[in-house]
């Protein structure tokens, strides 16, 4: 594994897959579900993905916790489909522009399952991926410019500081007698100050990075080499197979539908 700079416990099979491969896997698993729109393909994919949970190092409970926001949001999309999709088959009721019909019920179910099936692979694949490791892989394997990748990585680290700034500024506004009224105005004035802090912090960070040789002409080395292995091929092939089975099941059952048809 990587250099002695990182000593993380690595137990799950998926942890040994390069983050760049993981990005490719998410695209493979999600793209077909974005252009097709039937319940069978999404449900099959969802089921097969759930069978893969043990490989990810996540517990089912952890997966469920992370899915909560999606599960809360998905019915919103489903309900709008239920009421406003193009009617077809038996019509069960109409109110103004809303019509509930066989077609709209089917579509709404398909959307419900699909939203979850789109979110699940992202959660399974990236929940345990370390941002630094992702950056290493994007720069070394995907050959994105290292200045860009490391700049974003270092900048992202400072987000927590802005959260603290925001809290303190809220308290300070109460202390200064402006806490009772004008919440909107207060919000914008704090956002502006935060912008000032961001620029200043960015300048400081750039100086600190430059002081440590960042951006010089020397060819950079990587303390944590990011490489591809046989496992990456297996992981990508498995993702392809999974989505092929899901789409195949939809075609065989006759439910397969592409968006817009």
């Amino acid at each position, binding site marked *: 594994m990587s*250099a002695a*700079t990182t000593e993380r416990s690595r137990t799950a099979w998926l942890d040994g897959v390069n983050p760049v491969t993981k990005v490719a896997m998410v695209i493979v698993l999600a793209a077909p579900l974005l252009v097709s729109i039937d319940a069978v393909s999404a449900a099959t994919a969802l089921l097969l993905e759930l069978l893969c949970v043990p490989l990810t190092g996540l517990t089912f409970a952890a997966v469920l916790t992370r899915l909560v926001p999606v599960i809360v949001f998905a019915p919103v999309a489903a309900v709008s489909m239920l009421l406003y999709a193009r009617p077809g088959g038996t019509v069960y009721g109409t109110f103004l522009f809303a019509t509930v019909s066989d077609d709209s019920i089917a579509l709404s179910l398909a959307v419900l399952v699909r939203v979850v099936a789109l979110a699940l692979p992202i959660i399974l694949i990236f929940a345990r991926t370390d941002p630094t490791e992702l950056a290493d892989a994007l720069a070394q394997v995907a050959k994105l410019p290292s200045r860009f990748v490391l700049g974003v990585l270092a900048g992202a680290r400072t987000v927590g500081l802005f959260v603290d*700034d925001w809290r303190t500024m809220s308290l300070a506004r109460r202390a200064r*007698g*402006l806490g009772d009224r004008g919440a909107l105005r207060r919000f914008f004035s704090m956002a502006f100050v935060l912008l000032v802090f961001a620029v200043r912090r960015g300048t400081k960070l750039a100086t*600190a*990075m430059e002081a*440590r040789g960042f951006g010089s002409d020397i060819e950079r*080395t*990587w303390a944590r080499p990011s490489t591809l292995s046989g496992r990456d091929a297996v992981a990508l092939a498995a993702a392809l197979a999974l989505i092929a089975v899901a789409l195949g099941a939809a075609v065989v059952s006759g439910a397969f539908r592409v968006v817009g048809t």
Partner: protein
Amino acid sequence: MTGPARVDVEGWGWRYAGRKLPATREVDLVIEPGERVLLLGASGAGKSTLLAGLAGLLGGSDEGETTGRILVDGAPPETQRGRIGLVLQDPEAGIVLSKVGDDIAFGCENLGVPAAQIPARVAEAVASVGLAVPLDRPTKALSGGQKQRLALAGVLAMRPGLLLLDEPTANLDPEGVAEVRVAVEGVVAREGTTLVLIEHRTAVWADLMTRVVVLAPGGGVLADGPPERVFAEYGEALAAAGVWVPGRPVDLPVLAPVSAPDAVLRASALSIGREKGAVVASGLDVSLPRAAGTVITGPNGAGKSTLALTLAGLLPELAGEVVAAEELAARGVRRPVRWRSTELLTRIGTVFQEPEHQFLAATLRDELAVGPRALRMAPAEVDRIVDELLERLDLASLALANPFTLSGGQKRRLSVATVLAASPEVIVLDEPTFGQDRRGWMELVALLQREIARGRTVVAVTHDADVVHHLGQHRIRMGDAA
């Protein structure tokens, strides 16, 4: 090239783009390999500019205009990345990555050190600053002293011949100061690295340094020599310029202790925390004596700031209640956290650790008027209060300046003045003397003593033993974090 570096500064000066006057000029200086130089001078004499110049970080001609030259080992510093290591005052400013090991390795990677050699360099750097934490520890979980030692380790992993430290301990508690001092001492003793350090609090570093260089405010070098000689000959001028010269105590009275029979604010069995469920301290019994100074001390993470903000009516108590004296009640309510913002304003004022967090306006005048206007005072009355404060705190010449453009000492005074504008009974301050030079420190403490004499109650969270000495009529010591 390895080993300690040599520095030649020849008639050097720098003017930032957009400024009329140079930040510093006509500096001539030769630093031999292995020398340990304490760089002093009044605020604005260009110490930090010189240090940035030595580090090769001032940028090109679009950033400013340079005269003369600086050479490190005979070459311009910009070409010497890795030979020169810089550690700055703000512990947050030096950290680049989110894990300790990765952050230390960052410089080596940039210098093209072969990956196979980096782990050994990281281990060596960690050992030499005595940072005994796992390499996968998140950098945000470190204390201030640990962060500064991490910054030092990140620099040492590059094996520099010249170490530049810009007030590395100004924002640290006494434990942190001691940690960093020991780490730096170990490095220079082992490696003989050339050292240039800026620090107002000279007592921490004086005995480690072989030479003191004082920059003159108008440019050039005012004094240069062994520490004892420079302090003896220029002690008075240095003290006036804001330097804490060893053996020169501040000339301010020490207020008599009080036994706290008459409390303005009181709390018993108090639990505090920034959010629900995250208790940082509990079972606190606190009372603040009227018209006296109270100091809150204790190690990092003990909850000092949280206690101050809770007493100030800004954070809700997690258990127990903060209760104000009868005469402070608003609408019959005696719990500060239940007061309206405008009710709090005239009762308890808070000065935050970072002055900029509490600035709201585009000019000093408007900044000072915020409180009086929130209280719906007549314009003439607002003007009277603002004028009086500008005069009293020596800020009148800056009345139309933007608060964000002030110096550190001016920002601190302004943040105190914004609180005084609403005449609160109680003034709560969080680390008011952080990063202040001797002059700023004395102005601030004298101001607070005058407020106490006028019958105000002052509460200060502080690590500063001198603040405790001069304002600590009543002392609250917080225990170690549970």
